[in-house]
């Protein structure tokens, strides 16, 4: 902001004063400059944030140094000395790193199965909330309200201690056909491949491929010629014939069924769902499912009613109305809040320790108390949960982008 030339010419000033005044006005002008102020205030804020962060870190390092500790991750290679009750096998002599991966695998199992089941439950419950059936609607509404308005930890304790552990003991186990229920877990029969399995599975795969090829060829022919080709009947028929032929060729028993039986203190064989896994899984599914139900209900209601009427008016079937009109529009509303619920489920899985399930958090806790390396272990754990959350977010963002309204 220099004064116009004609003004400075008229006012007589000494050189020194003019210089001084020029500098002062320029400085004042810079200090009044909004861009400078914006930049400077942000610079000061960044510097202050860095200073506080640096002070915290140096404080930590000093405190650790004073106690003779350091921040190396070398302890991960040391022998863990403990075993983990569930998940991938772990020996006493395995390393802390192995223990950590076992915990991670257990967490991922809960998260992945939980996401699928919670989505299914949420979808069904969300549709039920809009149902014309008063009883169904009211029951589901009660479920949603109870789940949404009580703490998850309380629900987990209730589910584990008051429901699952109240099942009968192994000695008094409940046998429902092939399913065995007890407080030590739920056992289902396991399918075991036996002799001839490879031959049979090869033929079965061929059967599926043949069925698919037949189906698409006959659909194409129907479109081309207009005659009724019955693609579905042909596909299923060929599939069944080939699979049955394979069964006979493979000697009649390519798969045997193994039932669980009691041996000493434990059940042997079969597939087992442990009470702890069931506790955390169903706890998370019931809790998150209630939130998803309301999101689905809101998404379906967000589609204007006229769209539904218009779709019916042009003669689409109910399934087609849902598939081509309602869902594409509802999903746009549903996906962003659904992402939040998925992230919540992933993070809430760290409550598993409350019901004794050795997930990532529970195992990390054991690792840091056995190794004493709390800072590193917690940092690793935070990083791992961060990665899990970012992966979920990334996948959901891709889905969200695909569902976006394409504007021309």
């Amino acid at each position: 902001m220099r004064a116009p030339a004609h003004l400075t010419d008229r006012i007589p000033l000494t050189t020194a004063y003019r210089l001084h005044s020029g500098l002062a006005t320029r400085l004042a002008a810079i200090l009044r400059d909004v861009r400078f102020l914006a930049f400077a205030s942000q610079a000061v804020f960044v510097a202050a944030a860095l200073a506080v962060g640096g002070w915290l870190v140096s404080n930590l390092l000093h405190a650790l140094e004073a106690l003779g500790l350091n921040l190396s991750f070398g302890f991960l290679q040391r022998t863990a000395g403990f075993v983990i009750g569930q998940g991938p096998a772990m020996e006493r002599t395995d390393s802390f790193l192995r223990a950590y991966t076992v915990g991670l695998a257990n967490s991922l199992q809960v998260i992945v199965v939980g996401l699928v089941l919670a989505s299914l439950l949420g979808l069904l419950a969300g549709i039920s909330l809009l149902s014309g059936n008063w009883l169904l609607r009211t029951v589901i509404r009660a479920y949603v309200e109870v789940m949404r308005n009580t703490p998850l930890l309380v629900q987990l304790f209730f589910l584990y201690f008051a429901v699952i552990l109240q099942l009968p003991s192994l000695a008094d186990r409940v046998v429902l056909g092939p399913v065995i229920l007890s407080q030590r877990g739920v056992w289902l029969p396991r399918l075991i491949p036996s002799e001839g399995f490879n031959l049979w599975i090869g033929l079965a795969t061929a059967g599926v491929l043949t069925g698919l090829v037949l189906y698409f060829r006959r659909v194409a022919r129907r479109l081309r010629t207009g005659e009724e080709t019955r693609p579905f009947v042909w596909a299923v028929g060929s599939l069944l014939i080939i699979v049955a032929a394979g069964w006979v060729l493979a000697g009649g028993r390519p798969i045997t069924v193994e039932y669980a039986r009691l041996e000493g203190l434990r059940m042997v064989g079969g597939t087992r769902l442990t009470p702890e896994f069931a506790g955390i899984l169903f706890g998370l599914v019931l809790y998150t499912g209630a939130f998803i139900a309301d999101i689905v209900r809101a998404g379906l209601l967000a589609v204007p009613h006229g769209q539904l009427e218009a779709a019916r008016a042009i003669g689409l079937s109910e399934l087609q109305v849902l598939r081509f009109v309602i869902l594409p529009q509802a999903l746009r509303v549903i996906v962003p809040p659904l992402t939040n619920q998925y992230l919540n489920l992933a993070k809430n899985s760290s409550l598993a320790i409350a019901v004794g399930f050795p997930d990532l958090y529970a195992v990390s806790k054991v690792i840091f108390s056995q190794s004493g390396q709390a800072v590193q272990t917690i940092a690793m754990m935070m990083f791992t949960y961060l990665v899990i959350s970012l992966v979920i977010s990334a996948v959901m963002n891709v889905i969200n982008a695909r569902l976006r309204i394409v504007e021309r």
Partner: protein
Amino acid sequence: MSRRFRFVFLSVLALSMLIAACQPAEPVIVTQEVVVTQEVQVVTTQEVQVQVPVEFTMESARLQAVKDSGQLRCGVNSGVRGFGFLNEQSEFVGFDIDFCRALAAAIFNDPEAVEFRPLTTPERFTALQTNEIDVLIRNTTWTFGRDVELGTDFGPTTFFDGQGMMVRKDSGFSSLDDMGGATICLQTGTTTELNLADAFNSRGLTYETLLFDTPEDTYKTYDEGRCDGATSDKSQLTGNRTGLATPADHVILPETMSKEPLGPVWAHGDQQWGDVVQWVVYGLIIAEEKGITSANVDQIVAGEIKDPEVARLLGLEGEFGALLGLAPDFMVNVIRTVGNYGEIYDRNLGPEGVDIPRAGTLNDLWTRGGLLYAPPWR
């Protein structure tokens, strides 16, 4: 263009001045300092011998900090009956709790001047390392790794424990060897899970573990029958058995899977503070050995004392309190308000408490065949 340049230049200048202001850099003086220290060393060689004993009587920094704050911060358990337990009246009671009170009585002549910090097992060492507590008295086992690696120091053992296994009477187990394939409930973050792995591995038995964060969840789950056994230090098993639905239905197997010396722990680096904790504990043991109790301590102080060690313990002879930075008669205050070791034991672990037999065990005085032994107070 030039205005933009000037604006950026000035911003960068301001930022760099800010950064420069944060860096204390005075390299010139360093060389001078070297010269000074050399001169001092020559002059003070004779004085060193005078100053060293003075440094010994100096108080510990932590003791001063505790005195300034007016309270001792003691890390304790809140879920183990007999040792550290938050009772129905919201009071901390137990064997470990009484040692916290004894320390407070030694420092402040007030056994109530303690701030109890209930800690979970994994939290406890972090709390010491980060200076959240002054001393940790929370049934903590003294091990090589904890002593050397975690930056903590261990005091004299106040209770000699060992890991045991609690099972149902009707389970038919009479020893660990019967327990192949069993499911065991235990608390996470302790030496317990390591000892359990050792015990079962050395017997060639398979087992499953269920880990919980708190003793409450652990014993609740065991009580529901989810586990065939619950393992912990025998003292804790005895204490927690009283909290089960039907305590008489459960027994503790005879095997002892480990040595568990339990005692006070403090952060490494302040030996004088360690001395205070250590000698208060020893004082309590000596008091029992000499028959000084909360009931008779005042009479003994008032009367004529024949035993010189008793006179030294009670501050009537020597300057032992001053050496630690405490009152001369600090042990009188401790014994009057909290009692001697035997009284603490009987109150919490004796028949009135969780009933852990003492006579003839490791926790009896050395004069009666146990391991409790204090160095001489002189």
